[in-house]
């Protein structure tokens, strides 16, 4: 881009939780600033004005605040109304989101509203010859695809944990924006809102993690993993499928909506290896996967792929580990 070309106007939706902007979203702000864009952040929810200017420190020149009680529940649709208006009024070229349960819904609905393109699960962004290019791992991360947008605005969801926030210092100008929520958008209400559930075992500090998924067959079989974990001196973790089913506590969940872990050894048992699970454990030193399906996606990124029945392998493995430790 030549120096006299106008800067690309980028809007970053910044999600917040319990009075703080989320890390991932700040990471996206920093990335957008690195691209050389004119970065504006937008915050939605009552009370967001209080911490809005701090986002300037991560690279946003301006922060728009939709500080309104109508946005109290973290549900997507009222936010789509607000963002549609902002994008139409201020004409952003790009709208970026750090992927989460909330932002994925906002981004896709906004795309429909604006008849705009949305690319998801991006692990990098660059500007090449004046156009935005997203890097998206596809087909179980077996291939990296360059994706683009045919017209503005270009909407993108960035895979969780992709960009680190970089504190550069500085304050942003804070500007209030109008909040008008359509009647049908306000039809979804949150009766109970999630708060950090920190009870249960801590898996983030463990050197060894033995993780279980639906392949365990029943909640009782977690005892097999607990025994192996004890023998290895590690902790037990789980997938969302089994946490959702009530087999194991949420605090032990690894993945996009759970914890991010990087133990020296990760033993995945009866886990298919969905991308949303992978993002929480791909930093592990050595990944051993036991799965009876030879096509299980987890084998694509395991160091040791063991095709077999975990019910036979795990008890024997526990016994062998114990023997070694005793010797």
């Amino acid at each position, binding site marked *: 881009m030549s120096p006299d070309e106008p800067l690309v106007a980028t809007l970053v939706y910044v999600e917040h939780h319990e009075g703080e902007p989320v890390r991932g979203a700040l990471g996206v702000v920093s990335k957008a600033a690195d691209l050389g864009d004119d970065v504006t952040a937008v915050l939605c929810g009552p009370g967001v004005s209080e911490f809005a200017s701090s986002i300037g420190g991560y690279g946003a020149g301006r922060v728009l605040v939709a500080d309104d009680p109508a946005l109290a529940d973290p549900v997507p649709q009222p936010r789509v109304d607000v963002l549609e208006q902002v994008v139409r009024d201020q004409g952003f070229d790009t709208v970026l989101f750090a992927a989460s349960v909330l932002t994925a819904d906002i981004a896709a609905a906004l795309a429909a509203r604006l008849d705009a393109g949305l690319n998801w699960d991006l692990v990098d962004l660059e500007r090449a010859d004046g156009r935005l290019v997203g890097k998206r791992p596809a087909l179980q991360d077996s291939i990296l695809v360059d994706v683009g947008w045919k017209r503005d605005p270009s909407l993108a969801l960035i895979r969780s944990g992709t960009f680190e926030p970089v504190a550069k210092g500085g304050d942003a100008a804070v500007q209030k924006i109008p909040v008008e929520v359509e009647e049908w958008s306000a039809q979804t209400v949150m009766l109970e809102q999630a708060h950090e*559930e920190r009870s249960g075992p801590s898996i983030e500090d463990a050197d060894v993690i033995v993780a279980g998924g639906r392949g365990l067959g029943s909640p009782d079989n977690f005892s097999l993993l607990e025994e192996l974990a004890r023998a290895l001196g590690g902790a037990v973790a789980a997938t969302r499928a089994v946490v959702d089913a009530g087999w194991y506590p949420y605090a032990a969940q690894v993945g*996009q909506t759970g914890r991010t872990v990087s133990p020296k050894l990760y033993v995945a048992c009866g886990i298919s290896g969905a991308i949303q699970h992978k993002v929480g454990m791909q930093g592990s030193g050595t990944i051993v996967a036991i799965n009876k399906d030879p096509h299980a996606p987890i084998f694509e990124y395991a160091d040791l*792929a063991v095709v077999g029945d975990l019910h036979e392998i795990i008890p024997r493995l526990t016994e062998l580990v114990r023997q070694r430790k005793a010797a």
Partner: protein
Amino acid sequence: MLAPVKIAVCMKEVPDASATKRIDPQTLRLDRSGDGTLNEFDTHALEEALRVKDASSETEVVVVSMGPGKAMDSLRKALAMGADRVVLVTDEAAAGSDLIATSKVLAKALERESPDLIVLGQQAGDSDGAVLWAALADRLRLPMISQAASLELREGKARSKRQTEYGYDVIEAALPCVVAVSDAINEPRYPSLKGIMGAKKKPQETVSLVDLGLAGDEVGAAGSRTEVYALGEPAARGETQRIEDEGDAAEKIIEYLSARKIL
């Protein structure tokens, strides 16, 4: 309204897991010519609808899909499980549709049905988007709940528990609404022999874009707002060593870990 009278379930055919998935280097699209199978995640959506039908016999469950004509073979499994009929939007011009184009087509097909409840799966195994419902709900101007780990229908409302990054929410939306379910919500039933036999006789409608009042350039590659520029290789992550268990897998795992001084 006691129970939803009509439930639409969005389901799609995806390439079979055993087939090597590939993106055609010419078209830069997923090669869908090989064996297809019903997207596993969508069978959870169907199961949830069938449970409502089990409890209230007036409920009709209609499967709505977009895909190549041969997708009907996979969708027949939904009929065998208990769905009443299938509407498959199939049209050359729809090929290569991205999120924006797909949601346009499915929204039209759903408008024709005007269901009391629309259920989707957690993600399509090929695109891993996990976003379509939100675009659909917006086009249909309906409230939505995603990632539902439970679904209760009461007094004209849908209520779900669902996981976010912070734990569990409870959300409620008035019917008609769009609900996307987590794959942990239920254990999908297997089709019975009777179900399989009966499936062939159930209505299997294919509709074209014209039937839906859509022009070819609104959908497919022409109507898409995103594109694929190039295919590349992901960062290499080292070799995967493979073991097929022949009764000695545990020994081999120990060997592997000791050789790398992990044990």
